[in-house]
């Protein structure tokens, strides 16, 4: 399992940026990375650019859910893609006070209305190799189904947050 600190995630090739972390909500931690200078844009195979100068990455880590949500915004503050990481636990790193999540392999992306589940093979492999327990494997699958339902029914509370108000 990989512990992911939000101070570190998704900054490859980024040489100048600003990071805001909000510790003022009882239900979630929220961070905003504003990309000021990147060596090269990050572009998906389908041509969608997710990281470039003046783009934003917003991460929401619910305190009582088993997933982290990442939303990519362009320089016009338009939402480009949602990326959900299923997690064993979300919390605050004791030493640095930086929010983190323990990544449980399976991911879900929502892009232009298309929903895709990724890396289920990695989850199965982790179980087969004994890197996670059967309980953790089941937790990932139950969370995935619950999350897919909330996305399809358009009632996921974190997707419906006014994230644009955090983009300075």
């Amino acid at each position, binding site marked *: 399992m990989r512990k992911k*600190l939000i*101070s*570190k995630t998704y*900054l490859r090739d980024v*040489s*100048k*940026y*600003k*990071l*805001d*972390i*909000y*510790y*003022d909500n009882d239900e979630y931690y929220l961070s905003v990375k504003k990309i000021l200078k990147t060596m090269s844009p990050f572009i998906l195979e389908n041509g969608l650019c997710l990281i470039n100068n003046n783009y934003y990455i917003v991460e929401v880590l619910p305190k009582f859910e088993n997933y982290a949500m990442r939303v990519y915004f362009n320089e016009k503050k338009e939402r480009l893609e949602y990326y959900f990481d299923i997690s064993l636990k979300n919390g605050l790193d004791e*030493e*640095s*006070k*930086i929010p983190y999540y323990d990544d449980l392999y399976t991911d879900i992306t929502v892009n232009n209305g298309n929903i895709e589940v990724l890396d289920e093979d990695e989850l199965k492999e982790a179980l087969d190799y004994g890197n996670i327990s059967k309980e953790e494997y089941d937790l990932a699958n139950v969370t995935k189904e619950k999350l897919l339902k909330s996305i399809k029914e358009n009632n996921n509370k974190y997707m419906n947050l006014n994230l644009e108000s955090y983009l*300075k």
Partner: protein
Amino acid sequence: MKFLTSTYLKDIEKYKLSIFFEERYCITVKKIIKIKKPFILREENMDITIIDNGYYILEFMPFDEKYICRIHIDKNKKIIERFYIASKKNSIIDGIPVFEDLKISYVNVLLSNSFKFYNIEYAKKVLNAEDYLFAMNQINKVKKEIENKSNYIYNLNYKKYLI
């Protein structure tokens, strides 16, 4: 090793942290939204509120120097105190600014417009001779820079980071 993201958070219940990564330095700003009780220091026979609701803690960490600077700022965006603290090493670990604290500080209290050294006797006890000498040299260098008006953080337009 001290993480700039976790310093001075005692009794603070709600806050916002900003980290600005520049090419030669980084700056962290903590905006205090809710603290259980104000943090007050006795300085120069005055009680000075250092941390309270609406206050800021700005920390400056240059990558090519051996000190950090912490600035306490009130809710009207006025500087209360500047602390220059000698460090053995400044670095970024997992995207987090960290420094090795060498204890000796040079402090500027704005209210009394005074400057003074902190922790010299304490540093003598807890540091080895080499680190102690290194720290004293660093802090004396900062002192000279301030006197010459050439210290970067002393001259910084800090208000642009209070957003």
